[in-house]
């Protein structure tokens, strides 16, 4: 579904992404780990079109997207989230849902589009909000939501559009264990409905539990790739996370904890 080949990105003299290649197959949940400054978010920005890479190619469902505008990439069904979920703060939860709906996307080209949303779309939005525990918050402003509710809204929004690949940027950041479990089940549930995932996070327990395969990055390069358990046990990855003395497979212990 997503093929990133030999992508490079430099900021001045600093090489943020160095000849990175990765593949995300349809229906998979793929993780991307690495310490701060490893290039994970830069890679997210390049894939989603927010930053133009210096070299390399990116194909999504067979189409080259390395020179496509980010809004057009989103229209193709490749959608990303951001590290701090803010939503559209001074719009209601339901309005946030509508912005991401297929109906809005199809008719926002007309200046005098329908002034009242279609009942079926609103019903779909309400049913989705119900599923994510936000049904009672439909008419509330997003700026009044608590952080866990904002996380849930990110997933609920994704259900409104025609999303094929969802790239989550640190979904577990600042999330308590109960909510983390909830997030994990929602990711699996969305995958079962046909959404593919590329997930960046620092939380190894979360990443190893939700992802089927993992790419590990350091200094802008991919240093390991494979099944979750293999990557977590990889000596280079262990060295990266716990230093040179950590070759006792302590990452696996952390992931199991």
């Amino acid at each position, binding site marked *: 579904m997503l093929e990133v080949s030999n992508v490079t990105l430099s900021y001045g003299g600093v090489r943020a992404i160095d000849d990175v290649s990765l593949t995300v197959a349809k229906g998979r949940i793929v993780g991307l780990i690495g310490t701060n400054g490893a290039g994970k978010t830069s890679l997210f920005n390049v894939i989603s079109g927010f930053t133009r890479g210096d070299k390399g190619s990116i194909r999504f469902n067979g189409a080259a997207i390395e020179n496509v*505008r980010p809004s057009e990439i989103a229209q193709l069904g490749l959608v990303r989230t*951001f590290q701090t979920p803010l939503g*559209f*703060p001074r719009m209601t939860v339901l309005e946030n849902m509508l912005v991401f709906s297929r*109906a809005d996307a199809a008719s926002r080209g007309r200046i005098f589009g329908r002034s009242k949303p279609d009942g079926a779309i609103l019903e779909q939005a309400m049913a989705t909000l119900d599923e994510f525990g936000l049904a009672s918050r439909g008419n509330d402003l997003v700026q009044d939501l608590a952080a866990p509710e904002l996380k849930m809204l990110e997933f609920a929004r994704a259900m409104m559009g025609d999303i094929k690949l969802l790239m989550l940027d640190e979904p577990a950041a600042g999330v308590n264990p109960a909510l983390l479990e909830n997030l994990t089940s929602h990711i699996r549930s969305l995958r079962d409905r046909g959404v593919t995932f590329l997930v960046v996070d620092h939380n190894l327990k979360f990443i190893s539990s939700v992802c089927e395969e993992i790419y590990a990055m350091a200094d802008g390069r991919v240093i390991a790739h494979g099944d979750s358990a293999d990557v977590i046990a990889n000596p280079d990855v262990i060295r990266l996370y716990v230093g040179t003395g950590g070759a006792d497979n302590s990452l696996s212990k952390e992931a199991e904890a």
Partner: protein
Amino acid sequence: MEGLILFAVSISTLGAIYAMLCLSLNLESGNGPLWDLGIVSFFGIGAYTYTLLTADPALEQQSFLLGLGLPMWIGAIGAAAGGGIAAWLIGLPTLRLKREYFLIATLAFAEIIRQVFANENWLTNGVAGIYGLRQPFKSYFDAADYSYVLLALTLCGLAFTWYVTRRIIASPFGRACKALRENEPLAITAGIDPQKTSIRLFMISGALSGFAGMFYVWYNTLIIPGQFVADLTFFIWAALIIGGIGNQRGALVGGFIFIFLHDSLRFLQVSGEMAVAFTSLRTALIGLALILILRFRPEGIFAERPVRFDLPALKREARDA
């Protein structure tokens, strides 16, 4: 008493024109993401386009382009088209800028356009302006009653502007503009193209401001570059902030309140010396109103209202489905 009524009718007409501009500004800057400090330029271009299309040919001592003497309805379309096309041309380079730089660039463009009005004699008759412009349907009414007719026509223009802006704000396109205002990167992930959306919004707002320019020509029966100075842009912003940015009713009421605050002192019959003092007082009064609003009601008289739906009914329908 009759004088007071006529004065009230006159400032109400001007208030309606300001309210049109406030609605136009609210569309792009209140609901949308565009901080436009050049609204006066589209207002002026609309007014001049209308004039050049509908005025009689230039007299011997005058010099201006066209003067085609066309019907007023063609002038109305021309005024809106002039404002919209100017917004497109100005928007092409400036909408690539970040919000703060866009604001400065539009202010600069507005001043350039005013200089064009003032210095391109072949086009606009320069600072001398164009006088004695016709007012619509004037021959059908008694001259003493015409100010009421003009007020009615201007209120029709205001109603049209209200309808158009309200429809746009409630549409998916309006929602996309609001999403861009709130969080541009996230809006992009919803498939909204900031460039295309913003230029369309800017053009619509420019067209509505140009349309309002026609009523200003009717009101004044003359057009001079001095009518389109940057002060007017700041007046419209002040009116919108007082009324409530992001709220249609706020924009509507703000235009009238502003004119009442700014022009009501004109009615007082005072000595020449006092009149000069009162002129300064007018601006001070607006400043005071702004300070009070920002201190005690920063969201304006009418705060922006969230778009709410009948949730219980929707929940029932969702569960039944």
